């Protein structure tokens, strides 16, 4: 008797659930339909929204440059990306030109004051990458003006 009553009420709950789920599915389909409809009406009127690039690979290389960081593709690239771009941007690496000794002392300074970890075997790989791809350029005591953007002066 008790069992039968329980079974009956369970079936009622089960039926109710099916109805609720069905209603939710219909509402969801309608919602997607209307939202997309609205989207297609306003589409391309706001140029601030553009599609994200199709290629989502965070380590994409284009023309020899690691797109995400701007670093040159060469041996040791990922060691530099993984160890040197967590706290600061790669721009800081790229704009600095040092020899091996000064890079190592910079790494020691970062380890002492900036919470940089022990780089282990990667240290040599990183320093080699930096001195090979971003070597110091001799500038002398004053460089010539270059890249002058000539224009007609209006008065």
């Amino acid at each position, binding site marked *: 008797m008790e069992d039968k009553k329980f079974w009956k009420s369970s079936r009622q709950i089960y039926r109710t659930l099916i109805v609720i789920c069905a209603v939710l599915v219909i509402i969801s389909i309608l919602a997607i339909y209307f939202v997309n409809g609205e*989207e297609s009406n306003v589409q391309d009127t706001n140029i601030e929204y553009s*599609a994200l690039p199709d290629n989502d690979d965070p380590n994409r290389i284009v023309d020899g440059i690691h797109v995400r960081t701007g670093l040159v593709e060469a041996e040791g690239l990922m060691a530099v990306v993984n160890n040197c771009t967590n706290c600061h941007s790669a721009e800081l690496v790229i*704009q600095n030109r*040092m020899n091996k000794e000064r890079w190592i002392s910079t790494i020691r300074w970062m380890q002492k004051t900036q919470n940089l970890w022990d780089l282990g075997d990667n240290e040599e790989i990183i320093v080699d990458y930096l001195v090979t791809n971003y070597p110091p350029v001799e*500038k002398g005591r*004053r460089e010539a003006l270059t890249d002058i953007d000539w224009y007609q002066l209006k*008065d």
Partner: protein
Amino acid sequence: MQRRTFVKKATLSSMAGLIGAEVVFGNLMPKGYRPLALQDPDPFKMFDKDPEMVVLNSKPWNMEARAHLLDDKVTPNKFMFIRNNGIIPEKIDVQNWTLTIDGESVNKAKTYSLGELKSKFKHHTYQLTLECGGNGRSEFDPPAKGNQWTIGAVSCANWTGIRLRDILEDVGIKNDAVYVGYHGADIHLSRDPNKEPISRGAPMQKALQDETLLAFKMNGKDIPLAHGYPLRLVAGGWPASVSGKWINRISIRNIEHDGEKMGGSSYRIPCKPVAPGEKVKDEDMCVIESMPVKSLITYPRSGATFSKSKSLNIRGHAWAGELEVSKMEYSIDFGSTWSPCTLEKPANRLAWQHFSAQIRFPEVGYYEVWARATDSQGKAQPMLLPGWNPKGYLNNACHRIAVKVT
């Protein structure tokens, strides 16, 4: 299509979900702006800067002007360089912002609310030159470590606030006070809460000057977030790193302040001149105080071409740290001869001075216009790079522009 819809519908928090971190400047993000991880960073919108400004570093944010952008007599925010050592504070609660004055040399530490600071003390406005100690670093050889500033890490805005001296008098400081050291709310790049990105300061003599302010306004408005909102120490004429941002504590020290970036090679130069590239021991380095004499041609932009029948009007600014500029000259023959410029007096002490000149050229051809300022003690800008130092500070070599007469 689906992705576009998704991004469009995304709220700040769902963007945070996408990126996997909180959107730091969420409250500053212009409508329709997609944050860093979702598109190329647009710091120009984020910081309300002119798109011609140059980003040197996106973490931490460092951005400089170009000479022709600095043509205004009073630098507006859009052309003001940004130099950050750490991460900009992520939550600023102005209602509960306080400033504590403590240290070995205060009688008793005291804390003020922002409201108290504004209501209790008299307000002063000064136009103050702030130049990054490393402005011009990119020219040093051998190259010096750090952001490779060219010429644009200088500004001269109007700052409004209260005199640091007035607060220190209110707190009461001991006779053995030698230095003030600031502490700000910015975050260390490693996000280690026990580390400060920068904590510098100035000797008492500088701290007690009329023009040394705890500022809450820049050019008449709340200080922009990137420049220290809601409270900034402003000490014109000294390396801009003395002018600490997001200030919440000032320690009155009985020693030279020993906070972050006060030691080692930071903002310090060899006490005695060294050869280029020479190693210098920490104990042989001295803290930079006043910035050297310097000038910038802000009009015309380099590259001007014009007819020989016309004369060229140039103008710009000159400044000399703690001193005044007493003479301004230009040369069109690489320093063989110098001609005087008209030089205005500063709006107040420690403000840059404006200069102008009208130049006639003898022949058609390529010229460089070089500008040279001389300070009130007779020191002039060098045409070559000044003394090399390990971190490449204090490059005050003459600025020049290229012109072509046709």
